[in-house]
């Protein structure tokens, strides 16, 4: 890393961080009750609750979920050396949907299952589903040695579990609405506990990813080269996949399937700076956080007092910006 790009990385990181802080601050102002809640937060209990217990954790949570997805996206793209890789690549999205579909279908079927599910919640069902799907992918790929085998296994697990989720939904059409909500992704149910879980997972995942980012750099030169450099490829891959599964699972469990953040964030970063994976991982997560936070603000603000599903907005925002970059940068500096 030359120090020229060093400067640019830090500048961009600072700018994105500032954007996140600004977004969270703005997030306490925007909502269905508008500014009124904010003005009266010091006199009125309910207004205070709206600002401190609904808007603030929601904004911070949206930022954390976006950061987790951005981080997972950068790790996935580096790990598979594939610019189309996204956090849901190893089947975690379909696993989470299956978990939610099964939980919704079992709900109310027998009292024991219902009681158990109420205690566990849809969030845990989604997280368990996502992690199990990644483990299934690893099992099918017989380890982590072969990138291509891992990719294929991930695609297969994704398709099969997705189909099973559809089947469950089809058998019990009354869960259709609940599933729809999960598939669209939503930041509106994030409370303090969900928010803190995501931030803890994010900090742990970020530290690990930064620690092994050198291997991702080596991987860009090809697997054989990386191997010849004497790097512990297998061990690092396992660690990175664990990071990928954990951060995607945590984000998906709390917010549903938010589209495009994980794919777009690393591309947006690479179009702005050329740097090593250490920078890409850090910046992608910040970029993801800023992106999802912006989408969340728009989702709340555009049609207030109504709300849009945030997943729709991330796709439109991220996709639109990426498309613009692609056309603008047909030459140098564009999306690669």
């Amino acid at each position: 890393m030359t120090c020229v790009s060093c400067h640019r990385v830090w500048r961009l990181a600072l700018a994105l961080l500032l954007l996140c802080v600004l977004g969270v601050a703005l997030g306490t102002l925007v909502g269905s009750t508008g500014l009124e809640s904010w003005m009266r937060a010091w006199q009125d209990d309910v207004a205070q609750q709206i600002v401190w217990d609904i808007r603030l954790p929601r904004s911070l949570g949206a930022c954390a979920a976006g950061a987790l997805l951005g981080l997972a996206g950068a790790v996935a793209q580096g790990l598979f050396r594939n610019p189309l890789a996204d956090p849901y690549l190893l089947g975690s999205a379909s696993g989470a949907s299956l978990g939610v579909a099964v939980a919704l279908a079992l709900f109310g079927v027998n009292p024991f299952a219902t009681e158990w599910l109420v205690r566990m919640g849809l969030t845990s069902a989604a997280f368990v589903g996502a992690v199990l799907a990644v483990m299934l992918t690893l099992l099918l790929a017989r380890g982590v040695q072969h990138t291509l085998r891992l990719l294929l296994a991930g695609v297969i697990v994704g398709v099969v579990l997705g189909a099973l989720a559809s089947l469950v939904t089809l058998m019990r059409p009354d869960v259709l609405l609940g599933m729809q909500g999960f598939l669209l992704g939503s930041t509106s149910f994030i409370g303090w506990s969900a928010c803190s879980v995501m931030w803890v997972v994010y900090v742990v995942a970020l530290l690990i990813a930064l620690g092994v980012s050198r291997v991702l750099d080596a991987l860009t030169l090809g697997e054989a080269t990386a191997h010849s450099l004497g790097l512990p490829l297998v061990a690092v891959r396992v660690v990175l996949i664990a990071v990928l599964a954990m951060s995607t699972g945590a984000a998906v469990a709390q917010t549903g399937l938010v589209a495009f953040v994980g794919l777009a964030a690393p591309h947006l970063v690479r179009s702005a700076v050329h740097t090593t994976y250490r920078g890409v991982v850090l910046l992608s997560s910040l970029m993801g956080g800023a992106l999802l936070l912006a989408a969340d603000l728009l989702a709340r603000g555009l049609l207030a007092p109504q709300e849009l599903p945030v997943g729709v907005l991330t796709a439109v925002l991220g996709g639109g910006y990426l498309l613009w970059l692609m056309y603008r940068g047909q030459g140098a500096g564009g999306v690669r």
Partner: protein
Amino acid sequence: MRKHCWMALMLCSWVVAAHAVVLRDDRQVEVNIAQPPQRIVSLLPSLTETVCALGQCQKLVGLDRYSNWPESLAKLPRVGGGIDPNIESVVALKPDLVLMATSARGAERLQALGLTVLALEPRTHADVQRVMRLVAQALDVSVQDSDRVWRHIDAAVNAAAQSIPAQAKGQRVYFEVSRTPYGASEASFIGETLQRLGMRNILSASMGPFPKLNPEFVVRAQPDLIMVGDSNFADMQARPGWPHMRAMREQRVCHFKPQDSDVLVRAGPRMAEAARLMAQCIANLPKERP
């Protein structure tokens, strides 16, 4: 004087304590309602209708966007739908009771914010009575009153059944819920209404309440009568093989306006009106050709 104060205080606390009820809702969660709720938010149309049927309409302060009956509620603020309730709007209304479906999202979040949530999911005729009793208990309406409302509804369903001429009974009906197609079987709320009207269903209870069908199944079952919402009826003629079905050829199809479809599919206190709508259509159909 002091003695009087004490007595009044004790009497007050006794009155308050008298209401405190613990209800087990459809999530199997025990919900503690200390005082009769005065500000209710309902996130399910059939629960909104139940509250109003019990004469407690004036206590509703917020509704989901699908609740559209009775019309006097049109002015109440809307707080999203079952899958996307707007948490902030609900909290801002300061409700002391939130009624929602068990399949709706956000119940945990609302509870975490200190609201009382009663999650109920009426799916059968028996459920309508059970849910009505539960809501009555929660709202401090006497069981006698809620049972009287129920008996009124029950009698109206029977009256609708009696209004159907004897020769029209026993017809085999296909009730389409959505164009995918999903039908309503004997096990569904709609199926139960049909059964009480003396109709037979081409979909048996063993198929589950709302089975997903192969369109071929309906053609093969040759229903005497098809019931469907207006929006799905539009393309029925275009389905392969369907125009030749006897019910289609002889136009023995009941298609319902959207607002009537709402009445038909909601498992709530308007089930008598649903039965009436079906009975009216059955009575007005062209005579079956031998």
